Structures are given as structure tokens and as C-alpha cells.
């Protein structure tokens, strides 16, 4: 059976890379002694399928990972106990929240997720000032950016990838620098917009403070849902996102 795991990554561990996390997961699965399916061949690896990579330095309250198990559906593996079973084997700051079974026919996370919600701390700007910046951005019909690709400058428009922007208020009291807090919904397809690209497109360009991915969204027929349906096994919401 294939299971989908939802976990958070907050605090110091945010400075680990996507690759680092993959290796941490491999070790955690071995330690938890889960019946994980293994790839064939020269260098056998557990069958894990990660969602969209989170940049080194960014936090997240909604990361996902699909794992293939050798146990069939309906076996006596207690899915509800899995968060408690896995979290102790993961680095501090990585907390498994929910686990659910998914169909093998389901699209992979990388294909299915089309929008992410981000909370972005922007140092050195007041919420009011940011508010007017945001209006300008939203009013623009195009926001061309250039980036380097294989040594060539390519220009393209990130405006279609900006779904919504909202100034939440001032940065929280524990932020390293004072500033404003922005909530952004950014598309991941057809072209993904990264928080740093968004900030660079501001006039004047803004610096990136702490960044947290709060949600990933799958949109089917105009309705959005998170990659793990609401009825999944779940821990108390209060624990989610505890820093």
C-alpha cells in the first residue's frame, strides 16, 4: 500500500536541505522498522516519493511524502500510531502530523500540487508601506522577470503565478528583524514562482526574512484541497506549527 505523510519542518532544522531531509527520512524509516518497499538493483533504496522541494532555510507547516509499504491495505499496521512512531526518529523540528492511505493511481505530489501558501517576513518595511506595494503588484498586468538559464538570459512573466497577496500585519515578536508579514499564494505550475522572485519583483525589491510554507493545494474542478484529506488520522491542531 502507499501512504502519504504530512509533516512540519520548523526551527533550526529549516537550514537542512531537501537532500538532507531525504536521508533523514531513510534512516527514520529503518529505525521505525516500517515494512518499506525497496527498489531493485545495484543500489537498493526505500521507495519514497517527495513532494515539491522546500528551499534550504524555509520552514513549513505542510510537507508531504509518499511511501510504498510492502504490507497490503487492511493489514494490522496501525496508521493512527504512525505519527507517534516516526517523529522521535526524525530531527528536532520535524513533526509527523498525519498519515493516510492513498491510491497508487493518484497523481504524484509534484504533479498534483499546483499552489502553495507562504508566510513571508519582510524586514525593514511597515505593514502600511507594504500594503501599497502589494496593491501596485496586484494592479500590474504583467511582472516581467529575467533569469539565467543555461547561460542565457530568459525573460518571463510571474504575474499569472501570483494567486493572491495579503499583508497580515507586523512580524511576530520573535522575528530576528522588525518588518511586515505577507501571506502569498503562489502557483507551482505551469511555472512555479518562488518567494524570492516575488520579493525581487516588488518596487523597490524587498529582502526575504523568514519564510514558511503553510499549505500546499491540489485544485480539482475549481475546488481546492490539501494533499491529505480532512478525515485522515490527525493530532491535535495546537501542536501543529509549535516552534
Amino acid at each position, binding site marked *: 500500500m502507499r501512504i502519504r505523510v504530512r509533516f512540519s519542518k520548523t526551527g*533550526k*532544522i529549516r*537550514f*537542512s*536541505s531537501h*537532500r*538532507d531531509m531525504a*536521508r*533523514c527520512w*531513510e*534512516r*527514520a*524509516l*529503518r*529505525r521505525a*522498522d516500517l515494512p*518499506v518497499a*525497496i527498489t531493485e538493483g*545495484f*543500489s*537498493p533504496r*526505500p521507495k519514497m516519493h517527495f513532494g515539491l522541494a522546500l528551499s*534550504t*532555510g524555509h520552514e513549513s507547516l505542510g510537507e508531504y511524502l509518499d511511501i510504498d509499504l510492502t504490507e497490503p491495505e487492511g493489514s494490522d499496521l496501525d496508521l493512527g500510531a504512525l505519527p507517534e512512531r516516526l517523529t522521535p*526518529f526524525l*530531527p*528536532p*523540528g520535524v513533526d509527523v502530523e498525519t498519515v493516510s492511505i492513498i491510491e497508487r493511481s493518484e497523481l504524484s505530489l509534484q504533479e498534483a500540487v499546483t499552489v502553495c501558501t507562504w508566510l513571508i517576513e519582510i524586514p525593514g518595511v511597515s505593514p502600511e508601506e507594504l500594503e501599497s506595494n502589494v496593491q501596485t503588484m496586484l494592479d500590474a498586468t504583467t511582472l516581467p522577470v529575467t533569469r539565467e538559464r543555461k547561460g542565457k538570459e530568459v525573460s518571463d512573466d510571474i504575474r499569472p503565478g501570483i494567486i493572491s497577496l495579503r499583508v497580515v500585519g507586523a512580524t511576530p515578536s520573535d522575528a*530576528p*528583524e522588525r518588518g511586515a508579514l505577507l501571506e502569498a499564494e503562489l502557483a507551482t505550475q505551469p511555472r512555479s514562482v518562488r518567494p524570492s522572485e516575488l520579493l525581487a519583483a516588488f518596487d523597490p525589491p524587498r529582502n*526575504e*526574512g523568514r519564510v514558511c510554507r503553510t499549505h500546499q493545494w491540489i485544485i480539482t474542478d475549481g475546488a481546492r484541497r490539501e494533499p491529505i484529506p480532512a478525515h485522515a488520522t490527525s493530532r491535535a491542531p495546537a501542536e501543529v506549527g509549535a516552534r
Partner: protein
Amino acid sequence: MTDVWPQLEPLLAKVAKPARYIGLEDGARTPHHAADKVAWLLSYPDTYEIGLPNQGLQILYEILNENPHAVAERAYAPWTDLEGLLRDRNIPLFSLDSHRPAGLFDLIGFNLSAELTYTNLLNMVDLAGVPVRSADRRPEHPLIVAGGHCTYNPEPIADFLDLVVLGDGEEVITEINEVVRDWKKSGRTDGSRENVLRELSHIVGVYVPSMYDVTYEGANLVAVTPRYPDVPERVEKRTVADLAEFPYPKTQLVPITEVVHDRLNVEVFRGCTRGCRFCQAGMITRPVRERPAEQVRTMVEEGLRRTGYDEVALTSLSTADFSGIEKLVGDIVQSTDDGPPVSVSLPSLRVDAFGVGIATQIQRARRTGLTFAPEAGTWRMRQVINKLIREEDLYSAVEAAYSNGWRRMKLYFLTGLPTETDEDTLGIAELARNCVQLGKAHTKSPSVTVSVGGFVPKPFTPFQWFGQNTVEELRRKINLLRDDTRKSHGVQVKWHDPKATLVEGIMSRGDRRIGAVIEEVWRQGGTFQEWNERFDLDLWTSAMAAHGLDPEWFAYRHRTEDEVLPWDHLSAGLHKDFLWQDWRDALAEVGLPDCRWTPCYDCGACTGYSIEHIVASATPPAGGSQGTGQDLGSSVPVTLLGRAPVGTVS
């Protein structure tokens, strides 16, 4: 300020590989500092990736944290990008466990395994906010202590270290802790630093450089003598008699980010008496002390379960010599049979022990790279260095590897060895070509990488009297090899920069005068010299010139029997006349069998300390060259040789 994290956090977004500064490893302890506990900052003067796996530091980290009167944290050298940001903002060096400023610790302890990291040591001490010279430190500053293989000649860095530990640290660390604890209790008053250092010098294995006067006559060192009658004239190394009493690390650190040797490491024995004459590690860690096989199995089993690693390395200086190694590997493989596949790697594997049996055992989970170290290209040369591996041994190992599916292997060699001729150097290419040839029967494109290092003579080895090859000579030999293999399909040659070999040589056998050079290079920004892209010979040669010191005199000169060596006031247990005799034997191309399986030569390592080998089996491993009665060399009486060491034949 006891936690720099708030200042550090925004900087980490701007540096490469920030995960190396966050700690959070599985196995890391939450430190509880207290007035009645001595706080140690165990440090490695290189990046996290290189330093974290250091087993010596991990062992001490656990032993100290188990001690109710001690607390230990860890630090590594910040890369230049972070260092710049830290200096700009006046943020000090910090521990990884609780991001505590380094200056708040009572001791900062360094493991020194490579001479080129010395400038990093100075840099870290400076980043800690501590004066780099011990003479300038005051009671409020931490004590700077170093251990590790380089400290068998600590003279080049003697001015920067408050104390030096020789040999195994497991026991002496607790003794040091007690003395420092009393000092801390007494309030570390003015002038007390000198007293605590003097007291520490009474502990066997502890060398306090500032308690000794150094005398020169012209360019020559003539004596290093204690300044007080209660300070020992000669400092003896410490040796743990029985490894079984120290099953450490019990909870090996599992890093978040990738490091070298990223796997479970279990030390199966310490010490080696194969007697390779170039090998300092083998000489200074005698005698052989095996860990009981049962304990190894338990450490492997528990370690794998606890860490989640799928690879375990059985470490030692020559793992194939462990009594019953095939059975041990077999048992480990079998015990993991029902779980996910686990690979067992045997670093430092002698070719004469790599048979088909071991080959099939260790390739189960993943075929990790295979490395053999014949060290020299001809049997004559191998007799000189006492690495008694026959060509047939190498070929049967290579054959076993190819027939078990390996396609690529690495061969390690040294060049610039005493008496080396061009025939010996070219013998390296010949061996490599023959290995490729053997591979052709099994695979279309076999490949052999030859890695050549320039030989640096080390203290407490029979080659400590040998003047190393010049940069030009090493370069010529490397070119000889490159030219000779240019048309050899499947043979790649890689080499260590001969310029770095020169600097290593200066520090390996240098005296206290080299300290000023190290400081100068550090002040000029010469950190991370062990990194190719950062190494700069010009910094070193101009610093040598500025202090009126001649690189050739330090590195290229042969020493005579009666010369006072900078480490003569220290002891690794080895009698100087044993080493001299072995040097004469080397020049006579006479091999010396392993004393584990033959009568003792009284080198001093056991006899001097009333300890002995601990080996489970009194017979040498099957299939090996040694103890199998082959000719170990001619029996030319060494007295027939002249007194002065012969130079390199080039």
C-alpha cells in the same frame, strides 16, 4: 550572552551549507552547564563535514558528558563565508550543541590529525576571543588543549597550546578534568593559570609546552628542558590497556547533513604492529588491542538499530588482521539478514587478506568503492618500507574483486620514499596496468585509479631521519608516472600537490621556531590550507623567509643519529635505538615480521608500559604474506652500512 543563535540565524540564510552550523544530530546531548562542572568545547580545526565523524572527539564527548563534573559541547571551523559575517558583527565562535560562545568554556580541546589545519586552530582560538599565544592568556581565558596524532611533535604549535595530550584520551581526560575543576572552584584568580598548568604537567601523558626551555646552538636545536624540577623531563604517552573497557561511542552522532564516513563506525582494534616504516599511526599506537568480537557484534547491532544507517565500517589501521575477521563479517551480515540490506565496509584492508570470501560478504547491500594500498611499486621498495605485500597478493585480491562484480578500484601509493629509484616509481604504473589487464576478463572497461601521495617523514617512525624529496623531485616522479600511463587504457593517475607535501614536511618535523611562521600565515589569511583551492605555498615561503628560516633545512635535510630531534622530550614508548635499527634495516632492504605472531623485538611500546598485545588469535590470518614463511629480505648485517643515511637515488 550564552546563546548566539538569535544573531546567527539571519546569517545562515546567506552562507553555503548552513546545515553544518545547526547541530541537532541524533546522539547530541543537551548540555547542562553549572559552576561545579568543567565545560569542554571539543573542536576540530576543519569543516563540519570533515570534523564531525572524528571518532576521538566523539568518544571524549561521551566520556565527559557521562562525568557528573563535566559537560562537553562541540565546535568546527566555520567556512570563510560565515567567518567573514561573524567577524563583521563581532559574533564569536560558538558550540553546535547550544550555540554557546566558545570563550565561556573552561577548555577548548582540538583534535589534530593533519598539519595543514594548524592555521585553522589559530583562527578558531582567535574567533573564540582568546589570545592566540598562550603567554598572552589570562585566568579568564579557556585553556587550549590539543590531542591527536599530530601532537607527537607539537613543537611548531607549542606557543599556542596550553597543554598537549599524548596517546589515548579515554582515561587522561578525567584526570585533567579533576585538576581544572579545582582551579575553577578556586575562582581562577590572578596568576593561577601558571599554577594550574604546572599541576597539569604532573599528569602522565600531559605536556605543558610553557614549562620547558628550548635551547639552540646556531641553527641547531640542542635541548628542550623542564623549567622546574617537578616537571617531567620526558612526557610519556597514555595507552588504554584494554579496549573492551571503553565501548565508545555508544551513541555515535548521526549528522543531519552529509559528512565524510557517513555511516556507523565501530573500532575493532587499536594499534598495529605490521611495522610499515612510513606509518606514524602504526608506530605510535602500539601495541595491538583487539575489541572482543562479541562486543563488536553488540556495538554493530545496537548501532545500526539506533542510527538507521545501512552501512557499518569496522575500523582500525588494518581491519583484515582482526582475529577471525571473516567470521565476524559473516555474523554481522547474517544478523541483519531479515532486515533491510546492510553493507559492511572494511577500510584499510590489506590486499593479502581480500579473498573471495570477504568480497562476497561485503558486497551484499551496496558495492562501495574498493581501495587497496600497496604503497610502493616494487617488491624491493616494499621491503624498504616493510609493507610486505607480494605482487601475487595484489593480483589475487584484484581478481577476487572483479569476479565479484567490482568494476573500479583505487590503488594508493607513496612516492619520494627512501632509496626510491625510477624503476620503483614506474613499477606503480606497471602494477596498475596489470590490474586493468586482469579486469578485462570480467568487464569491458575496467578502471584503476592510482592515487599518489608525496612521502612526508613523521616523528617516531624509522624514517624520521630521512630528508624528504624536493618539490621538483616529486613533480618529476609524478610526471614520469603520467607519461608512462598516458597510453594505458583504464589507468588514471591522481596526485597530491607536492607543494603541500613540502609544507606538511616543515611542520611534521619542525621545532618551535615554526610557530612564528604558522602565526604569520594565519595573519595573512592562510586558513583552510588543507583545501586545494585555498592552499598557497607563497604565504609559507615568504613567512619562512621573513623569520630567517630555510624550508630546505627543515624538510629536505637528512638527520644524523646524534641529532637532537624536536620531539626527543616526548615518548611514544618506542626506544630511539629500535627506530634507528629499523631505519638501518630499511636501507638494507630487510623486512621485519609482525611481533603479534612472532617474538617481541622490545620496541618499548609494551615493555616500557607493562602492557601487551590483546589478540584473540595467536596465528596470523590465512592467506597473508606475513608469518607464511616467505623471504622477508636479505640478511645483510647492517653494520656493513655506512653511518650516514643514504640519500634518495634520483
